């Protein structure tokens, strides 16, 4: 078969490279969604852990010691 002219061959070449790029982009997007779900779960677990750590001290009437995370979350200095 003779070589296709550039305008016609260009469509096929662009199509092939687009398939490759689309697959990679879709894959990276799925991985991004998974990583943001993991981040959300970490935040959730951290909150759960803080709640679990606070409840016994509150019952005993003791002052809860701030965790390093709480200490870092103080009101911003103006």
């Amino acid at each position, binding site marked *: 078969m003779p*070589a296709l002219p550039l305008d016609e061959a260009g469509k096929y070449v662009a199509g092939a490279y687009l*398939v490759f790029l689309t697959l990679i982009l879709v894959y990276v997007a799925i991985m991004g969604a998974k990583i943001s779900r993991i981040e959300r779960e970490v935040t959730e677990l951290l909150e759960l852990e803080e709640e*679990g750590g606070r409840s016994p001290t509150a019952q005993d009437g003791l002052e809860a010691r701030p965790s390093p995370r709480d200490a870092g979350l103080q009101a911003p200095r103006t």
Partner: protein
Amino acid sequence: MYSKGFKPLAVATVLSILAAFALVFFYAPNDADQGFIQKIFYVHVPMAIVALFGFVAGGIMAIKHLRTGDRSWDMRSYVAIHLSIILGTAVLVTGAIWAKASWGHWWVWDEPVLVSFLIVFLLYCVYYPLRFSIEDPERQARYSSVFAIAAGAFVPINFTAVRLAESVTHPRVLSQTGGSLPGDMRLTFLVSLLAMTLLFVTLWKLELTSKHASAQLKRLRGRLELRAEEQGAATPARSPV
């Protein structure tokens, strides 16, 4: 654990992909026979080679799993096969596009290279239902490893058989005489192959890191829930007066 050295690897991957694209479109000459359509070669063939090596690597990692009993090798094997199937899908689609432009048909059934790749691809498609139909994690990992080893051994056998078969239309790229690519085309091809290999390793590490983090989170959640239950049991409930 798996994220060590990820950042330089990702940077190297992006740079090599950009270099490969630049070489493909601004350096490598048009093929004398096929013209501009031959540019598909630089994405189609490296993907096929990396996908086939990924399948074999999955089998080797599965051997490591069965020898050591370490489930992390099963996970490595699973991710390698998973990525190879994604690349395999792209190989079939880009190959069909090239075939349509070059031969006038999307698919040629009497061509050994095409059909053998499709057989390997379909064989590995069976891996998912096999793996996820087993609930017990230990059995799942063991059976999946056995499959990965058997299928991984099939890939080089299949490749050799295809090399021995007479080609009808599909060209032979990696010949024993060193190939018939001119120097500038060969350089472009090698850079594309390197870029594809780096992309595979980067995505493999990315998915493994994500899976590892997910598994650790699950363990942590389990421990916290257990601790919350223990605290709940230890605190005496006050009866209403």
